[in-house]
Each structure stands twice: as structure tokens, then as C-alpha cells.
């Protein structure tokens, strides 16, 4: 049956290399999302009124800390990238560490938890960004993307990276679960 064949292929020696490559990609994606959103800040000066002939200027700043959803986004992406870094380090420098049943299970559960964490963060930031981009006339919330275009662009880039990270983490979690179902072929030194 195709399912059994795929499961077998996923737990051969190649699965470690595939997993490593996927984890590196996911680490880079989530790290870049966290960094880009963490450094997201734009300051602009607007003319808010006129006193006679002289315009009054006020300076406004758009920072990611103003929105709690973006703060959660940065924190969650940092946590997921740290988790991936730990797993990469374990795989590269683990040496002859034997993956017993509980260790495999904990890796699979941690991967699943991180997938849900990252998807929640990406979704919350995505919906907040949609409100910021389009505004909401029912609640009388003005959009801010027409005034802070660079801030919005950087945020969009971070969001794309985070969603790519979500897809990658989903695949990683699926491969981890497949290694769980057939544990007798798995140890860290199973490469090539």
C-alpha cells in the first residue's frame, strides 16, 4: 500500500538529511520573520494644522510594540526558531545519542506544539495587519498603511516568511511523526 511505502521511505537514512534541510529552512524563515518584525519601526512627520501661515508639524512613530499581536508574533517566531536551532544542534552534534522511544515522542510533540504556536502567531498578526491595511469603517478605525507604507511593507515581508515557516514546520512535524511510527530504524547517526 502506498501509505506503508511512503512511511518506510520516510524512515530510511535519507529522512535525517531531509529533516535537517527542512529544519534549516524553517529556522531561517522564522528567524528572519522575527528579526524583520522586531526591527519594524517608522517615524514620520505630518502637518496637523495651520496657525495662520505656519504649519504645525507632529511626529508620529509606528512601532511593532504598539500592537500586542505583533509582539506575540516576534516572541513566537523567536521561540520556534530557537526550537529549530536546538533540534539542528542535536542532530549535528548529537553524535551517537540513541533516540529512545520517549525522546522521539517528545521531539514529535514539541514539533506539533511549535506548529500550532507559529500558526496562531502568524494568523493573529495577519488579521491585525489586514485591519491596519484596510481599516474598518464599522468600528471607525482608520487604515494606517497609506501613511506608513514602509512599516506595512516590512510587516508584510515578515508575515510571508512566517507563513512559509508554518508550512515548513507542518512538513517537519509530519516527518517527525513518521519517524515515531517506525522507531526501530532511527538514531541520530542514521545519515547517508
Amino acid at each position, binding site marked *: 500500500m502506498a*501509505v506503508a511505502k*511512503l*512511511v518506510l521511505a*520516510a524512515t530510511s537514512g535519507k529522512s535525517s538529511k531531509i529533516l535537517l534541510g527542512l529544519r534549516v529552512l524553517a529556522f531561517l524563515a522564522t528567524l528572519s520573520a522575527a528579526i524583520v518584525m522586531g526591527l519594524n519601526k517608522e517615524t514620520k512627520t505630518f502637518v496637523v494644522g495651520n496657525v495662520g501661515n505656519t504649519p504645525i508639524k507632529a511626529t*508620529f*512613530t*509606528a*512601532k511593532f510594540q*504598539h*500592537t*500586542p*499581536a505583533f509582539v*506575540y508574533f516576534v516572541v513566537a517566531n523567536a521561540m520556534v526558531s530557537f526550537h529549530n536551532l536546538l533540534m539542528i544542534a542535536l542532530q549535528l552534534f548529537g553524535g551517537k545519542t540513541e533516540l*529512545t*522511544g*520517549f525522546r522521539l*515522542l517528545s521531539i*514529535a*510533540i514539541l514539533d*506539533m506544539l511549535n*506548529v*500550532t*504556536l507559529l*500558526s*496562531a*502567531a*502568524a*494568523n*493573529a*498578526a*495577519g*488579521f*491585525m495587519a*489586514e*485591519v*491596519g491595511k484596510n481599516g*474598518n469603517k*464599522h*468600528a*471607525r*478605525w*482608520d487604515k*494606517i498603511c497609506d501613511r506608513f507604507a514602509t512599516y506595512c511593507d516590512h510587516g508584510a515581508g515578515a508575515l510571508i516568511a512566517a507563513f512559509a515557516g508554518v508550512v515548513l514546520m*507542518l512538513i517537519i*512535524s*509530519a516527518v517527525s*511523526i*513518521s519517524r*515515531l*511510527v517506525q*522507531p526501530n530504524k532511527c538514531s541520530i547517526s542514521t545519515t547517508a
Partner: protein
Amino acid sequence: MVKVTQRLGGLVLRFAAFCAALGAVIAMVTSRERSSFFVLSLVAKYSDLAAFKYFVIANAIVSVYSFLVLFLPKESLLWKFVVVLDLFFLVNGKLTVKMVTMLLTSSLSAAAAVAQVGKRGNANAGWLPICGQVPRFCDQITGALIAGLVALILYVFLLIFSIHSVVDPFLLRKS
């Protein structure tokens, strides 16, 4: 005996999650309030905000999925199938427990993020909180979010539970 209690526990969890998700959908869909905002009349509906629409759709999908899975025959065989299907969740577009958990958590976090702005506003963006004008709407949204959170927690238990019921034989053998 252990198998029977496992199946029963799974059924109870799923039924509770179905009730919670259904409650969340109903609470959010029936939240509608009209109030006057200075000289304008403001009608607050859940469909004004995209995050709430996504919350309703996601929780409706989850409740329908829970209801259908409750009646699966031969559950002992299909539990393992459901977990192994996690590998190939794109096969025939089938939902599994993991995908459902992701749906739940993403919809809950999005709705909570937007509801938080509605409750406290965002001073830096000039967004005023709307909960002062429509308090009953806000309370019902809060109730729906809490029901969604309960459904999410139950599904996380179900996730660990379903993995454990499949993998436990392997772990026992390896000790």
C-alpha cells in the same frame, strides 16, 4: 478493559469539544447590537470583522468534523489511521486532529487579537475602543472566545491522547 476506557475517553473528549465549538459558533453568530454613536446609529455585527468571520467558519468546520468522527465505526482501527494520516493530511483533503487543532488555535488567536483592539483600542493608531458603545456585543464575543478556548484545550488533549493510544505499544516494548 484498557481499550474500552480509552475509546470512551476519546468519545467523551470529542463530544465535549463538539459542544464547545458549537457553543462558540452560536454565541458569535447571535451577537448583534444596535447603539447610537453620537448622531449615527451603529449596528455591531460579527461579520464586520474578518477575524470573527474566520473564527465562525473555523469553529463550524471543527464542530461538524467532531460530530462526524463521533460516529465512526470500528474506532480502534481508525484511530491509528487518523494518526498516520497526519503524515499525508493532503490525501483526499481529509481532516485530522492536528489540522483541526491548528484551525482552532489560529482562529482563536486572530479573533482574540482583534477583540483586544476592540476592547482597549490602539492609542497609537487612533483606533477607539468600541466596547463602551456596545457592551452586550462585547460580552457575547468574549463568551464565544472562551468557548473556543475550551474547545482548543480539549482538542490538544485529544491530540496527545490519540498519539499515545497509537504509540504506546511501541513505547512499552522499548521500555
